[in-house]
């Protein structure tokens, strides 16, 4: 048996904070002086994963840039719930234009800053999966191929939640949405369609692509910080469970994101210039069923008749991620 020094602080580094860690190793979110980029009073639903993900990511970006960021937001839940006129929850420089043009506006902001010689001010584009994967995709792809100096963050809740839970290109197979009802022989969203945007971003061979979830704060903060160390186009894809659209309990938002990673359904990794450079191993592997069962959008897989055929296909997708991204390192049979 090999022994390694265990760096052990009661709860390791899995909790948000840790009183036993030196200051410089503590998370942004544990800091009483964090930006709170998205502050209280916003109108997101109870237990909103997107509100949480946005604060995590932007607070980390604020720390990484010493407070020098401008965020450009696409239309969507995040925009609507944060800025119902005349209120705003944003405590950072933030602007919104249209549903489909956030990457292009972000490109413009970045170009303007360069023209003004203000290169220390960094630009972030952000939106939900609808704006990113579907409606703004052309503008985003253009931003990537021009390698514009923007970090684009997609908060992926896997459907158009703001308008009433319609399917998007990021909706997973078998999930029920308003437009993919749980009826017929293959209920819910179809298999074999949709887009894997992290992989599409990697195909542009931009400097940095990463995925993260609201279940692993430290990983998310590290990736935002790393992204801000690059210049050029960067893409961060954050899984943010949606209690309303997914039909889950509001208290389970973080738990569901965790189960998405631990089942292998959502691989957490990072890539540079089109090559995967690291992945976050699964700590306690769970069958996909544990993830699916907590969500009403998959309830048709369990009642009135259990659909093992569909569950098996989803498990197959998880297993493919596990082998593709090396989520279960060899010898680790947990």
């Amino acid at each position: 048996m090999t022994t390694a020094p265990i760096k052990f602080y009661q709860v390791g580094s899995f909790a948000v904070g840790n009183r036993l860690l030196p200051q410089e190793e503590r998370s942004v979110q544990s800091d009483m002086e964090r930006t709170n980029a998205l502050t209280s009073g916003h109108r997101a639903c109870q237990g909103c994963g997107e509100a949480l993900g946005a604060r995590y990511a932007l607070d980390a970006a604020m720390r990484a840039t010493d407070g020098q960021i401008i965020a450009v937001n696409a239309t969507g839940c995040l925009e609507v719930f944060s800025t119902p006129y005349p209120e705003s929850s944003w405590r950072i420089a933030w602007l919104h234009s249209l549903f489909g043009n956030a990457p292009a506006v972000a490109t413009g902001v970045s170009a303007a800053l360069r023209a003004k010689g203000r290169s220390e001010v960094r630009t972030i584009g952000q939106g939900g999966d609808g704006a990113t994967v579907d409606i703004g995709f052309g503008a985003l792809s253009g931003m990537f191929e021009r390698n514009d100096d923007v970090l684009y963050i997609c908060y992926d809740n896997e459907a158009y939640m703001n308008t009433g839970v319609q399917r998007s290109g990021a909706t997973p197979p078998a999930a029920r949405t308003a437009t993919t009802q749980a009826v017929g022989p293959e209920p819910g969203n179809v298999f074999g369609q949709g887009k894997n945007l992290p992989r599409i971003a990697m195909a542009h061979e931009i400097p940095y692509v990463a995925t993260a979830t609201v279940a692993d704060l430290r990983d998310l903060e590290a990736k935002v910080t790393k992204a801000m160390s690059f210049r050029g186009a960067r893409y961060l894809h954050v899984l943010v469970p949606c209690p309303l659209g997914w039909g889950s309990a509001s208290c389970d938002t973080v738990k569901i994101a965790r189960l998405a990673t631990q089942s292998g359904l959502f691989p957490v990794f990072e890539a540079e210039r089109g090559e995967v450079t690291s992945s976050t191993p699964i700590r306690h592997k769970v069958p996909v069923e544990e993830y699916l069962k907590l969500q009403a959008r998959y309830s048709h897989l369990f009642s009135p008749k259990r659909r093992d055929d569909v569950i098996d296909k989803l498990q197959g997708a998880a297993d493919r991620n596990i082998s593709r991204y090396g989520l279960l390192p060899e010898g680790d049979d947990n």
Partner: protein
Amino acid sequence: MEKPFAITLEVDSSLANHTGSWRVERPKYVNLMPPCNNACPAGENIQNWLYVAEDGSYEQAWRSLIIENPFPAIMGRVCYHPCQTACNRAQLDEAVGINSVERFLGDLAIEKGWKIEVTAPPTGSHVLIIGAGPTGLSAAYHLRRLGHQVTLRDAATAAGGMMRYGIPKYRLPREVLDAEVARIEAMGVKFQLGRHVENLQDAIDEGFDAIFLAVGAQIGKRAYIPAGEAAKILDAVNVLHDVEDGNAPMLGRRVVVYGGGNTAIDVARTAKRLGAEEAIIVYRRTREKAPADDGEIQEAIEEGVLMKWLSTVKHAESGSLKIEKMALDEHGFPQPTGEFEDLEADSLVLALGQEVDLSLINNITDLVVVDGVVQVSPSMMTGRAGVFAGGDMVPAERTVTTGVGHGKKAARNIDAWLKKATFEKVENSPIVEYKDLNPWYYSDAPHAVRPRLEGARRASNFDEVVQGLDESTALYEARRCMSCGNCFECDNCFGVCPDNAVIKLGPGKGFEFNLDYCKGCGICVTECPSGSIVMIPEKS
């Protein structure tokens, strides 16, 4: 005001929107009962002193510990740690080595010479304690801390009771015992050693304000065993006492110990150390059913002590015993089989339990004795007003830790009685179960094992068998605590709130909910590692 083409909204303008009005349930911070604390016979607040120790504040941790128990160095050696049996961490990987951290703190206190100041003003009351064992010493300590004058009287010439005359040195080195006793003496407790109290009435007549009886159970139980004239039969309690006094009896080459409790194990291991080639424990039931601590049995086996389970001694002759084999019936009781064998033995030591020497209360009519033990009220008072009793002489589990707990309980009740009040025990909070925790957040970290002397080497001397942890290992072990049911400021609630509705008050001050904005989603409850937040319904 004329708005430009691009609308500008004020920073923090959303704070006008009090989303707390959406809520139907609210989160609440709670302090629940960790299973370790609940299991501790001495009522230690284990979770608290581990928490304090985790950042290296060892003296503060020790001071938290001794609020309940004045003997951490002794406990860390002789306590059978029911806390660890109850520890929720056992369901994650392995129980926290509470006992070894306790010993570390206790040893450090001795090394550093940390003292206990009596800060309570003198009450003017004087309490006599009869018996300077763990129970009496604990009561003396707690009464002294409460400001009472205490006189402690014992027939033996040194204090400690069974900690000195029952527990062998290889489990409890005497310098450790002496140091922790001396600390109590330094608090101003008056020790009257070598003074046997033959008659309680005489003591009562001396005019103390209250008396606490803690004379223990020191008479070995006898079982009738037909024996030849030359058979050598001894009693375990006397053997251990004589060894302590430096008058080790001649036990011979082959020693048989009859009994399955901790005393039997102690005698067998002591016999090995006194030079016996073979020490054999004969017990009528199985190892699983033996009352001795399994760790002690294991250590004895490692030292070469032989075990004869399911056996009784039928007859003793000089040099030989007749043993009958037993078998467990369907109820788990041992039944004779009629199968006999001879066992060579130079001596037979009986370790069949102990009884209380009640001679000092023979003429006191108010004291009720049932099954050989003194009956006490829930406040530990006997039938005679102002006379309390505890430890092995009252109905209880007979361990050092239980005795220490009795001493504390008696002290608090005596204090209340002297002040003409009733001691109100605070109602215990609900116990935290493993299912109430979110173990995801705890790193995988196996238990640190205490080094032990090798079996063969240690069986030849009285050196301490179990060694202590060094500082880094003790700290690691303390940090394995999951802080069940009590906030340890991991910041999870502060981080996971999508509404920024948790206010962090700063180190040591904990958190508050900002109910103006808390929507009652409950993520903080689900993600709290230690189960220290609950949801409660809003009043409709």
